[in-house]
């Protein structure tokens, strides 16, 4: 009975704006976390893309836990690539990829649409976003063949070693098992 009573009390306020609170305004959803954005930088190798810029925004994939994480502890992200200042290719198609820092695993995100956007998912703790110029739009492609137009590294790629520099510059790294 207490349960029912509480629901009743609370229910009275569900549909109306709280009297003591500011008036409800249209919501502006917060942007994806800027901090984890991936800045894409042109290689300058492909005609019409020398001035190209881009970003890869990463947002956790929907998860009942809020935090999308796999059984190996890696985060699971949705990646949205936004490019600009690129001329349409004379031949071929721009395609966005993600790859590990060792380049041993590659996944095609999608081709860039007319607005220069692509999206897909990634589940690696560190990764690169690569935009290439491919000879054709092949959704089954396992890796890129064409030249790299832009590339960028996930924020996690900036995790740096402190061995031998910074606070540890006076340490003999060899004594700690490092060459």
């Amino acid at each position, binding site marked *: 009975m207490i349960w029912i009573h509480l629901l009743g009390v609370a229910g009275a306020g569900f549909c109306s704006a709280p009297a003591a609170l500011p008036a409800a305004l249209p919501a502006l959803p917060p942007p994806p976390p*800027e901090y*984890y954005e991936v800045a894409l930088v042109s290689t300058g190798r492909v005609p019409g893309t020398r001035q190209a810029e881009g970003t890869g925004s990463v947002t*956790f994939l929907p998860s009942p836990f*809020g935090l999308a994480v796999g*059984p190996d502890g890696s985060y699971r992200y949705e990646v949205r690539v936004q490019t600009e200042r690129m001329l349409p290719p004379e031949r071929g198609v721009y395609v966005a990829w993600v790859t590990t820092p060792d380049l041993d695993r590659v996944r095609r995100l999608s081709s860039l649409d007319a607005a220069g956007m692509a999206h897909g998912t990634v589940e690696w703790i560190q990764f690169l976003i690569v935009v290439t110029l491919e000879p054709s739009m092949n959704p089954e492609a396992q890796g890129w063949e064409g030249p790299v137009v832009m590339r960028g590294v996930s924020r996690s790629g900036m995790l*740096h070693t402190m061995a031998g520099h*910074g606070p*540890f510059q006076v340490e003999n790294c060899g004594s700690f098992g490092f060459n």
Partner: protein
Amino acid sequence: MHIALTATLILAAAQGGQHDMQGADGKGGWRMPPMAPEMPTLPGLVGAVPPVGAFLPGEGLDAAKLPEARPSSMVSMRNGDTLDISVSLVRRELRGKSYVMYGYNGQYPGPLIRAPQGATVVVRVTNEIDLPTSVHWHGVRIDNRFDGVPGVTQAPIEVGESFTYEVRVPDAGMFWYHPHSREDVQQDLGLYGNLLVTSPDEDYYGPAHREEVLVLDDLLMDENGLIPWGRESPTHALMGRFGNVMLVNGQTDYQLDARPGEVVRFYITNVANTRTFNLVIPGARVKLVASDIGRFERESWVESVPIAPAERYVIDVRFDELGEVPLLNSVQAINHFRGTFYSSVDTLGIARVAGEPADAQVSEAFEVLRQNAAVSTEMEAFRRHLGRAPDFELETSVRVTGLPLDIMRAMEVDTLYVPPVEWNDAMPMMNWLSTADQVTWILRDRASGAENGEIDWSFAVGDVVKIRIFNDPDAFHPMHHPIHVHGQRYLVLARDGVPNENLVWKDTALLPVGSTMDILVEMSNPGEWMFHCHIAEHLHAGMMFHFSVVDEESPPRG
């Protein structure tokens, strides 16, 4: 700066090859937490110890003269029943050694209290430990007088004194109880227990062969025993006190026997000071059923259960294959010295699957993912708030003063990348040396600029309040925060602008670094209530405020 380790590695170090103590051993009673042998100490920190006294429970007492703690037992209570709980010093046996720790009724965890939804049970608590204490009934929309927060809802229970709690349980779910007085010490030493509130609806959950409780925790130890806690204020104020010995239900060797096809419902609670677990049960199917205060709109298959301090999840697990099935904590830890991530896997326990197959009807019913229409119907009224601007906006930050210069420099250098979640203690010595006197974790009201205790929010019963919380990655050295609201329930409406399509009532939810979380708090319960980070050391480092909820039809007493 020191690198992170898996608990296994740290324990291995503790058992033999650990880092040189470099003068800290015995200084003022301090022993430095064990670290990897390969890890150097920051040159300016050799021999440093935290600038507070070292505390161990029952100092001078011979553990052998204390009663040996027992595993938790269940207490079924009906409306109006009374339970006496003594908070006392106990002897705990861990890995073949005896330690002085704390216990509720001499048990680890404390008694599992089982009560029917809607009941009010009475719990008389007597303090027989060496610190003032209190009992907070986490997640329960309890009468404010019994929320257990010294200085807000009650005076602390001094040594030798008692306090009687009337625990009203309006919601079904798995709750827990713990001190709200130096919980960095008391909770860590064993003061935690579960409160299982059962629904009168026999079909509330799907069928399962049986139910088990999993209480996840960790303890920080070396070969000499427990690493002391800060006497005047907590150590480990930067990242919270990570342990290096994993505990399930207070045990280091949790085991479960199961039959093939058996469906076991696990009620999981994370009672660790700061560690977020990522529970994996390889080889078994896992169905996510419920969280803090009730069921999800829809059940779902999951591959792991990431669970932050104070959160609860209910999962149904079917053990299909014969043999041993490990329960793992599997995370991507950080080695700051090498600048690498590494897979850190700890075995929390073992399920042994053997014998005759379990009742097939229940095993088959497990295949169905239930849609909880009643939950969805209830949520519809709240979901409409998704489209409106937040009523309040909070941001998190941290302020550091008086830490050794070497720590400050290292922290500043170490800001090129901050992970969304700190799964391991990636800088154990710096963390250990930081105390709540030097570190202030901050919740800031963006509109007023008020911080922590300066925040003065007031609501009426029936208000539904949308709060946007942003974990500022540009703070000096940010970290994730499990955000806990006392006495009310809330929904996580959206994260980083992405609507949550599968709502569940929460009282604690994880806010990763850089993320924005929109929560909708149903102000249903009058009183003065806490809003805080549930990393015990962050709470004591200031990351809290309280707000009032007034029942305008029934003014507060007194």
